[in-house]
């Protein structure tokens, strides 16, 4: 009798347990009766259902992330880039989501992945690398988000955001090397330009300094000559006015001075004729003149 009670009690407990369920704040729940959804908008809290006949499945209500591995895409210039993006999505329509994926997130991601990649591929094909990189100006992410959202709505999924984490040039090709080469060349050009500008400016400064020096010296030379000329002119005038008073005497006087100066070295040998005027009173008998 007791074991019977036990069994009945256990059954009752089981029934009871199976007729209550809790929905967490971070979940949706959908109630199924015999495999079909009866209600899908169940709020968090404690709820009751028919045991065993009705089952409950839970779906994450939160914003979820799809972070795919980086993949290569082609731009419109046929440039090959490796893109790493992520998608923020949530389940918007539980019943449609369940119908599409049987409630499995793995399935959902597997279905979502190609949708999103397709959108990315299309958009990249229509843009140059420059446009893709500067997507703030071309609204690339907005377009991607809305396009993939449209496609994903069949899965009961709403795509809230699609953003690109990295756009990278492929590591295993020469593209990166050529970018480096270009950067180096550009820097070299800048360096050369700077140095040349420096040279040019320095030359100008030096040349101007030299010019100033030459001008100053030339002017000084010119003034110097003028002053000397003035001095000599005035001196000549003074001489002329003084010597002109008695030109003949000046000739005599100046000649005497010249003789004196010319023979001042003391090395000059003079051969003299005793019959000259100087020797008038010299010798054996003064010659009476």
């Amino acid at each position, binding site marked *: 009798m007791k074991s019977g009670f036990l069994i009945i009690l256990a059954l009752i407990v089981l029934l009871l347990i199976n007729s209550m369920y809790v929905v967490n704040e971070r979940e949706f729940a959908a109630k199924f009766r015999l495999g079909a959804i009866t209600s899908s908008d169940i709020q968090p809290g404690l709820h009751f259902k028919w045991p065993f006949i009705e089952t409950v499945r839970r779906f994450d209500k939160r914003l979820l992330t799809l972070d795919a591995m980086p993949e290569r895409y082609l731009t419109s210039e046929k440039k090959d880039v490796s893109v790493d993006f992520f998608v923020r999505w949530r389940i918007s329509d539980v019943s449609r989501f369940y119908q599409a994926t049987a409630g499995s997130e793995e399935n959902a991601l597997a279905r979502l992945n190609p949708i999103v990649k397709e959108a990315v591929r299309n958009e990249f094909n229509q843009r140059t690398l420059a446009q893709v990189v500067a*997507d703030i100006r071309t609204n690339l992410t907005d377009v991607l988000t809305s396009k993939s959202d449209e496609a994903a709505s069949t899965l009961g999924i709403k795509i809230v955001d699609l953003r690109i984490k*990295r756009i990278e040039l492929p590591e295993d090709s020469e593209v990166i090397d050529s970018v480096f080469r270009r950067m180096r060349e550009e820097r070299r050009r800048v360096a050369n330009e700077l140095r040349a500008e420096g040279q040019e400016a320095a030359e100008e400064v030096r040349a101007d300094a030299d010019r100033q020096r030459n001008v100053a010296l030339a002017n000084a030379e010119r003034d110097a000559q003028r002053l000397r000329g003035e001095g000599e002119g005035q001196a000549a005038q003074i001489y002329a006015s003084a010597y002109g008073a008695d030109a003949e005497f000046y000739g005599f006087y100046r000649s005497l001075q010249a003789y004196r100066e010319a023979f001042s070295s003391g090395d000059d040998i003079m051969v003299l004729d005793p019959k000259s005027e100087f020797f008038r009173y010299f010798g054996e008998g003064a010659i009476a003149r």
Partner: protein
Amino acid sequence: MAWNEPGGGKQRDPWSGGGGNNGNNNSGGGPDFERWLKSMNERFGRIFGGGRSGRGDGGSSGAGAGGIVLLVLAALVLWLAYDSVVVVEERERGVVLRFGKFERNMNPGLNFKFPRPIESVLRVDFTTVRSVTEQARMLTRDENLVVVKFNVQYRVADPHLFLFGTRDPDDGLRQATEAAVRQVIGANTLDEILIGQRALLVAEVRDVLQTTLTDYQTGLEISDVNFQEVEPPQEVKAAFDDAIAAREDKERLIREAEAYASRVVPEARGEAARITLESEGFKEVTIARATGESARFSLLVEQYRLAPEVTRKRLLLETMQEVLANNPKVMIDVSEGSQSMLYLPLDRILQDRDRQPTAPSTAASRNTSPGPTNVEPARAAVEPRRDTRTTGRESRR
């Protein structure tokens, strides 16, 4: 509607009268959980021991089974008590769910709640500053590469959103940050990034990030964004450093030229001044000399006019005396009759002159020295050292 205020009061706990007794106290404040437990207890008692009264005395089978029940009940009660007390640390906040549904927040301190499965609490590290640091090589707007190291610091702003908005908010923030930085780097050229104001970049990233996070419902807020490194990639660093060096070279070249100029121009001015002053000096000297000499001449002319003949003679004789006194002389009488060859050993005379600084005079009278060559008949001076006929003897007295 919290069951107790922060700061911990034990005044009003669900069991109204101390934590976790068994269900003996039963004032009106307790929920029907109490009654449910009691009814279960009674039911158990009825099944295993045939009524409460039967517990004390009794059949051995009843007592043994009842003891197990008591033990289980005691353990249950203890566990319930343990699970009803929640200590929230200072840096945390708690979120209480009743049957999964959000009920209330919990502040730091001692709190009480219904035990599971009725109420559960989730803790959120609220005040600790979290940080994300990343380093990446990114493409700029002009398709150049730059290496960026950035750091974001953030905190939980809304625990509710933090728990229920996004599945992995920290990861989400990290991804959003990377995307924001890439967007900002991609919107600027390499020069703008390297040379421009870093604060502008930070502000741009912050804006983008803020907007993104609001959409994402992460319940996080940014406290700081900064770039720790913004550099050209290692492979081209040498070229970039050289460009910087070139800028400095340019400055240096210009400075050197300016130094040259500041030396040369004043030097030239100094030189010019010297030239001018020299010539002024020359001018004055010339004029002064002219004045002096002409004054001397004028004074002499005055005296000369008074006695011209005498003055002339005097001056002439004085001059001749001085001239002849200082120089070696040779007197040669060339009268009409004699055609003798005179020999003048001028070179020997010159040599002797060099040896003796005083000036001896040499006189040769007529006909005394044989064979001197006839050099010059008139009163004239002979240039020293020019005569070439050097044979013969010298005569000297």
